[in-house]
């Protein structure tokens, strides 16, 4: 029996589409609500990021509650950067109690890349340990082995980086995540489908769903900036060139075109089980992409 709507879809053979929303820096959530309303019926689930790039924002859990409120299906992203094991377990309990059962377990970006560089990096657990912790809680015990009153159930996901320039250690970790209990993976941004193809050839032996990460780029400059500054992103030269060759002001349009093309190809060639669209600040265009795809 499925724990959530999204888990139910995971268990079916349909092509999955998720997207993500970055919460605002501040207490005004109106734009986020607008985006939720725009997207909730067009995708299978909406991720809410957890201080993405270590920049302090409105919390993921709060965003997920809003998604829930607006009738959408949330995936809560939980990173290990800011909370120790007590806080992580507590947040998992809170999420479950509010019917937020889809959890993407992440290690989290380094504090150094964010806007609070002097903060203490916690990393009491890593992503693998977090997955395992969540699974252990499902068996009715917390990490210390104490009984839980009211036992949670989750649909657990994790991330993987098929485009890493040194892939082997990433695959070792991927397997550990599978063993620890990840049911689905949302990959880091894919910019070369060959990489995805190769990765899927390897990953297909595991009983997990892979959603290819699609990042919508707005310009060649943005692509280069992300290459240099955003962890886990390697935009291929072919894509940068394609973006660089368009007229000024038409970059985002080109980015949408590229994203749609990727999604279309993935779906038509059945490369993996779905896509996860990251519009990075342009959440409003996701419907256009889906339309085009």
């Amino acid at each position, binding site marked *: 029996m499925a724990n959530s709507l999204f888990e139910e879809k995971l268990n079916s053979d349909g092509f999955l589409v998720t997207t993500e929303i970055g919460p605002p820096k501040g207490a005004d959530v109106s734009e986020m609500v607008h985006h939720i309303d725009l997207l909730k019926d067009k995708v299978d689930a909406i991720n809410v990021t957890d201080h993405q790039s270590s920049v302090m924002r409105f919390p993921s859990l709060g965003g997920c509650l809003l998604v829930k409120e607006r009738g959408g299906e949330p995936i809560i992203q939980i990173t290990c950067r800011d909370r120790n094991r007590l806080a992580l377990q507590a947040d998992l309990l809170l999420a479950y109690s509010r019917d937020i059962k889809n959890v993407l377990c992440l290690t989290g*970006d*380094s504090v150094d*890349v964010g806007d609070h560089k002097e903060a203490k990096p916690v990393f009491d657990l890593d992503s693998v340990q977090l997955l395992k912790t969540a699974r252990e809680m499902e068996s009715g015990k917390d990490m210390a082995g104490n009984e839980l009153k009211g036992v949670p159930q989750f649909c657990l996901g994790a991330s993987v980086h098929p485009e890493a320039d*040194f892939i082997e250690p990433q695959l070792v970790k991927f397997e550990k995540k599978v063993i620890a209990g990840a049911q689905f993976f949302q990959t880091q941004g894919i910019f070369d489908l060959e990489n995805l193809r190769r990765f899927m050839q390897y990953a297909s032996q595991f009983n997990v769903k892979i959603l290819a990460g699609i990042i919508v780029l707005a310009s060649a400059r943005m692509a280069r900036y992300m290459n240099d500054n955003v962890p886990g992103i390697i935009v291929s030269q072919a894509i940068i060139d394609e973006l660089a060759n368009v007229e000024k002001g038409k970059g985002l349009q080109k980015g949408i075109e590229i994203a749609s093309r990727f999604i279309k190809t993935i779906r038509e060639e059945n490369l993996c089980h779905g896509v996860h669209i990251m519009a990075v600040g342009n959440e409003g265009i996701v419907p256009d992409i889906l339309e085009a795809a």
Partner: protein
Amino acid sequence: MIVAEQKPMEEIRRVIAPYERVLLLGCGTCMTVCGAGGEREVSFLNSALRVAQAKSSDGIHNFSEYTVKRQCDFEFLDSLADKVNEVDAILSLGCGIGVQVVAERFPDIPVLPGVNTSFMGMAKEWGVWDERCAACGDCRLAETAGICPITRCTKGILNGPCAGTKNGKCEANKDMDCAWILIYKRLERLQQLDKMRRYYPPRNFRVIPRPRRIVMKADVEPGEDNG
């Protein structure tokens, strides 16, 4: 070895400001090796402080300098006893341990830190020091091919690299090697990759309740059976 760096002059001048006679106290061990507070640095600092005083022409300080072999044991400090009577404060260029041992040995005199104690590490080359040990109290180097992920991975994670690694470097600092890439390569070379595939549970932070103490001497009574 303990590695430190000298505090900025402004800070040093600020902390010594209330005191007329200041003893600059060097340490002949780690602080000498890491170039933060050996005899030469003490002398350099003395010269620099005197220049500052001469140029600002508002100086009242009278500096003296001395370097002991090690500040972190009382016995090395005995030779200081006379000098301490003649100064109003000690600016210790010892590590944080040295400063505290000097303070404990001479309870009646202010002891001020002249360096920021930074880490335990090694000299990568002349003038470049790298951290190597976090003193976590639970060494797991046997599993990680002699490369410490707790110290050398910016996140200190135990089950493999995060996705931020690029060109073998860390997402936090492009000049810093990704510890997990190093570990993977070395394990592969040693044909021990199974060690990386193993799951490592969360760290036990209980092994480092602060402050720590290690007792090597056995709890035995002299004069009985054991002579």
